[in-house]
C-alpha cells in the first residue's frame, strides 16, 4: 500500500508541476532506506480525487457563451463549500471550447469561461489568491466526436486541485 501511494504521488507530481511539499502525513519516503527525494504530501491526492468524485469538478457552457447557467451554479456552490472546508487547497480553473469555432477566438472564449467560474467562486467567498485560470481553447477536448453530444461536454470549465497552500 505504501508503495502504491508513493507511486500515485509521483504521478501527481509529474502531472502537476506546481505541487509543493507539505508536512502532511505520508509525505516522503521516510524509513524506506532508499534514496528517494521527498515527495508532495499524499493528502492533496486524496483531496484531488475526492474533489472530482464527490464534489464535481466541471461546469458546462452553451455554444459561444461564457455565463454560468443556473443549474451549473449548483456545482460551483458545492465546490465553494468544499473549498471553504479545505481552506489550504489551491485550484486552477481550465477554460475549454468545442471545435465549432476558430482557434484564436476559442482561446479567448476559454479564458472567459475560466474567469466566469473564478468570479463566481470569488462571489461565494473563495479568496481570489487561491484560484488560477488557464485557457486551452479547443486544444484539449475531453469527448471525441463531431456531434453536439461531444461538443456539449467539451465546452467546459474544469476546477483542478493543484495543491495545498503553503
Amino acid at each position: 500500500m505504501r508503495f502504491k501511494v508513493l507511486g500515485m504521488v509521483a504521478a501527481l507530481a509529474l502531472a502537476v508541476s506546481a505541487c509543493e511539499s507539505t508536512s502532511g502525513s505520508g509525505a516522503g519516503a521516510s524509513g524506506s532506506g532508499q534514496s528517494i527525494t521527498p515527495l508532495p504530501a499524499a493528502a492533496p491526492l486524496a483531496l484531488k480525487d475526492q474533489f472530482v468524485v464527490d464534489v464535481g469538478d466541471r461546469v458546462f457552457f452553451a455554444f459561444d457563451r461564457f455565463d454560468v447557467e443556473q443549474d451549473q451554479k449548483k456545482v460551483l456552490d458545492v465546490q465553494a463549500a468544499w473549498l471553504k472546508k479545505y481552506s489550504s487547497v489551491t485550484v486552477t480553473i481550465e477554460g475549454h471550447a468545442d471545435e465549432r469555432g476558430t482557434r484564436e477566438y476559442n482561446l479567448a472564449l476559454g479564458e472567459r469561461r475560466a474567469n466566469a467560474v473564478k468570479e463566481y467562486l470569488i462571489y461565494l467567498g473563495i479568496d481570489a489568491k487561491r484560484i488560477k485560470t488557464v485557457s486551452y481553447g479547443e486544444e484539449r477536448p475531453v469527448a471525441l466526436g463531431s456531434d453536439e453530444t461531444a461538443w456539449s461536454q467539451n465546452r467546459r470549465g474544469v476546477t483542478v486541485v493543484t495543491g495545498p497552500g503553503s
Partner: protein
Amino acid sequence: MTIRPMIAFKKSTGLLVAPLVALLAFAAALGDAGPARAEITIDITRGNVEPLPIAVTDFVGKSGAAARAGRDIAGVIAANLERSGLFKPIDRKAFIQSSGALNALPRFGDWRVINAQALVQGRTEVVSDGRLRVEFRLWDVFSEQQMIGLAYFTVPDNWRRVAHIISDAIYKRVTGEEGYFDTRIVYVAEQPKSAKGVGRNRLNPFGKRLAIMDQDGENHRFLTDGTTLVLTPRFSPTLQEITYMSYFRNNPRVYIFNIDTGRQEVLGDFPGMTFAPRFSPDGKKIIMSMAKDGNSEIYVMDLRTRVVRQLTFHSAIDTSPSFSPDADHIVFNSDRGGSQQLYVMDDRGKNVRRISFGNGRYATPVWSPRGDLIAFTKLSGGRFFIGVMKPDGSGERLLAEDFKIEGPTWAPNGRVLIFYRKGQTNRDGSGGQSKLWSIDLTGHNEREIPTPMDASDPAWSPLIP
C-alpha cells in the same frame, strides 16, 4: 540548425556573367534585339483559366552529376508550374526533339506539332570551383522568340532552390505577377488522438509541434519536439524568425523562434495569456492579444525597445489582429457587436469600424500582401468557409466551404491562399484528419499540400531573399 543555403547564391541577370552574355548575343543574333515581347500571357485574375501547354525539357548536362541535376531541376519546375493550375506541362514522352539536341536553337516545328505553346530548355554544368551553373531559356513556340534567359551559380546541393527561382521567373514572365515557388511554409504538425504516436502527453494530446518545409512539401523538418503544445506560427517578413504561441510550463505565451539558431524566446513579461501574434510588415513589431481577467485586448510590442502599447479597450473579445501592408491599419476579430465580426482600426487603435456584415460569424482576418483584400474564416449554418473581401468590407467572395476549414495564409504575391481542413471526428477518435490545402484567389485549383503527418495553422513565408 540552419536550413538556409550556406553559400551565397548568385543570380545573374545576363549582363553580369561573360558566358551568359555570349549566349544572349547568340540569341540576339537570331534576329531579335533583347528580350522579345511575349505573345503568350496568362491573365491570372480570371477564373478557371485554360492552363498553358508548356514543354519543360530536361536541362542538359555533360557530366553525370550535371545531367542528374538537370533532370531533377526540370522535374521540380514542371511540378511547380503544374500545381499553379496556370500551366499544363506536356508529357515528355510526347517530345519529338530530344533534350540533347536542344544545345542549338529549338526546332519550333517539332514543339508546335505537340501543341506546346511555351518551351523551357536549360543547361547545367559543374564549373571548376565545384559550383553548379544552371541556365535556362523560355521560348514562345509560335513566335519563335525567347521570352527570358537567365543563368545562376550555386552549390550543387542547392539545385532545388534554383528550380524554384527559375519557376518564379517563368511564372512572372508569363503572368506579369511575382511568383511564389521560392518560399516555405511553417505549420503545426499533429496526430489524430487515435493514432499511436510519440511525443504526446496530457497537455499536448495531439502531439502538436512546429514544422517547416518548402512550399512543395520538400525539405520537411520539425522545429519543436512535441512535448509542449504550440499553436499559430507566423513568419517574420525578414524570414529568420517565427512568432507563435507555446504552452511551455503550462504558461500560454507568445514566443519567437529563430530558425537559424533554434533559439526560442518568450516575448515580453505579460500578466496573462498572450496569443494570436503576427509580425508588422517591417518585422519590427509584433501585434497580438493578451487575456487578463477573462478579457482579451490587442497590444503591439516594439521588438527593439520592448515598449508595449494597448490598442483596444473593450470588454468584448478582441483578437486575431493583422496589419495592412502599409502598416497604417489593423484588421481584427471582435464580438463587441454581439457576435464575431471583422473590424478595422488605425495603427493607434482609433477609428474602429466594422467591415463584415454578411450572415454568420467572421474570424481570422489576414490582410493580403498586396493590400487589396482581406482573407477570413466565416462560420455560417454550421459550416466553415474561407473567403476574401475588400478592406472596406465590400466584394465578399467565398472560395471554399467544409465542415471545418480555417486559418487562411497568403502567398507573397497575394494570388493563392493556404488554409487547413479538418474532417469530422468519430466517437472512437478515428477520423478528424487535418491537412493543408491551397486554393487560388479565383476559387479554382484547390489542392492538398502533402505533409508527413496531420497539419494545421499554416503560414506562408515571403519570397526567400
